[in-house]
């Protein structure tokens, strides 16, 4: 089993880097987008909240694999139009399509995490912020968001790990991620143990991710006080 790793170190390294960059990038981009979306979604009854719910419903209600296919093959059908608007370089690449699919997917889940955390903040803190003359935006920035982020940590850690494993689906659109490289090596060697190596790759990433999450959670000592 070890020889699979040592003989093909460059292949595994590329796979590892692709998996990490796909997961981390899509997670972070999705997080940035999910914050305003989750906040807007928490104002239930508004039109924008309903539109966002529609998006979340569609994304959560369909398999990620279908979303990946639709972006890679579906959008690819319009390659002449995409060339015309200068986007073909993006949709031609499995990596970018995978990144887009994972990001769009994670936005939906993270927006719901944000919404839950924002809605759990008592109205009394908003009044406290207002009473010291903070504007609505400042109350959001200095009261709601930091409290919400602290409360979201465990759920976000969960989402990151799920996203990491879901990222293996992009191997079907020729992305050279960990699983993609494992499948390539399997087709070369027909030795199933390459998948053990692949599994260990994911476990290592999860190990690091969990350590990071623990560090981040430890910063919010106040959470344990009540």
């Amino acid at each position: 089993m070890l020889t699979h790793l040592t003989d093909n170190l460059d292949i595994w390294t590329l796979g590892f880097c692709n998996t990490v960059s796909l997961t981390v990038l899509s997670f972070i981009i999705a997080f940035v987008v999910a914050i305003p979306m989750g906040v807007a979604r928490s104002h239930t009854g508004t039109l924008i909240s309903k539109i966002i719910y529609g998006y979340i419903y569609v994304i959560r209600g369909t398999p990620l694999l279908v979303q990946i296919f639709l972006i890679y093959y579906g959008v690819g059908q319009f390659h002449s139009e995409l060339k015309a608007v200068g986007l073909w370089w993006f949709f031609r690449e499995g990596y970018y399509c995978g990144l887009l699919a994972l990001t769009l997917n994670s936005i939906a889940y993270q927006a719901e995490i944000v919404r839950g955390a924002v809605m759990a903040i008592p109205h009394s803190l908003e009044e406290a912020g207002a009473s010291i003359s903070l504007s609505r935006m400042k109350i959001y920035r200095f009261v709601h968001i930091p409290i919400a982020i602290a409360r979201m940590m465990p759920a976000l850690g969960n989402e990151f790990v799920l996203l990491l494993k879901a990222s293996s689906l992009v191997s079907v659109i020729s992305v050279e991620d960990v699983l993609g490289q494992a499948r390539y090596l399997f087709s070369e060697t027909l030795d199933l143990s390459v998948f053990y190596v692949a599994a260990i790759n994911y476990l290592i990433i999860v190990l690091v991710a969990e350590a990071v999450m623990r560090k981040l959670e430890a910063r919010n000592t106040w959470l344990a006080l009540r």
Partner: protein
Amino acid sequence: MEYPQVNENPGEMVVSISGLNKWFGDLHVLKNIDLEVAKGERIVIAGPSGSGKSTLIRCINFLEKYQQGEIVVNGITLTDDHKTIEEVRREVGMVFQGFNLFPHLTILENCTLGPIRGFKLNKEKASQTAMHFLEKVNIPEQANKYPGQLSGGQQQRVAIARSLCMNPDVMLFDEPTSALDPEMVKEVLDIMVDLAKEGMTMLCVTHEMGFAKEVADRVIFMDKGQIVEQNKPVEFFTNPQHERTKLFLKQIL
């Protein structure tokens, strides 16, 4: 005992409310309220629950919207324009029944958030001011703890300091001791008495009649959204005019 009223300019109104009416849906919670609060005046508002006392003081800093009437705070007429509301809120400090401290910020940060983010005061200056007021409420040693590590009485004292850091011209107290264990009521009331002595204009919704007797210039009794009776504390407690007031006093004293 009566404290000297600190009032450089007698007759100057810090808060004037006229013709205030508010409805929650069909419920008429404030009926034609007229109230003038002079600079340095200490007012206690009493009344049964649901009488509209909290709602009344929450209108002064626009935590509650109202449908009719005019409120002027330090010469600024309240409108629903958010700039005006923020301006008024700078003049008005508020202490809540449930303390409402920010749980993710230390005691010191709770006190400096408003000055730093609202007034754009630099951090050092804001911290100095905050420490000054934390000393005043006898709690400077807790500055770097979180609200969750403090007792209710301590938290309420921090809430008072947080308001004072905004240098308000009038302080609103919305049942500040109602959520406290009995042995912590005194430490909060003592701070409020100190504030009153220094001439802070105060409107207190409270059931602490001892406090009313000791520091109030005027006691206002409300029932069913109306001001039923108002008088100096001595007269209010010894010679209530209205039947409803007599009944209320009989029940609480």
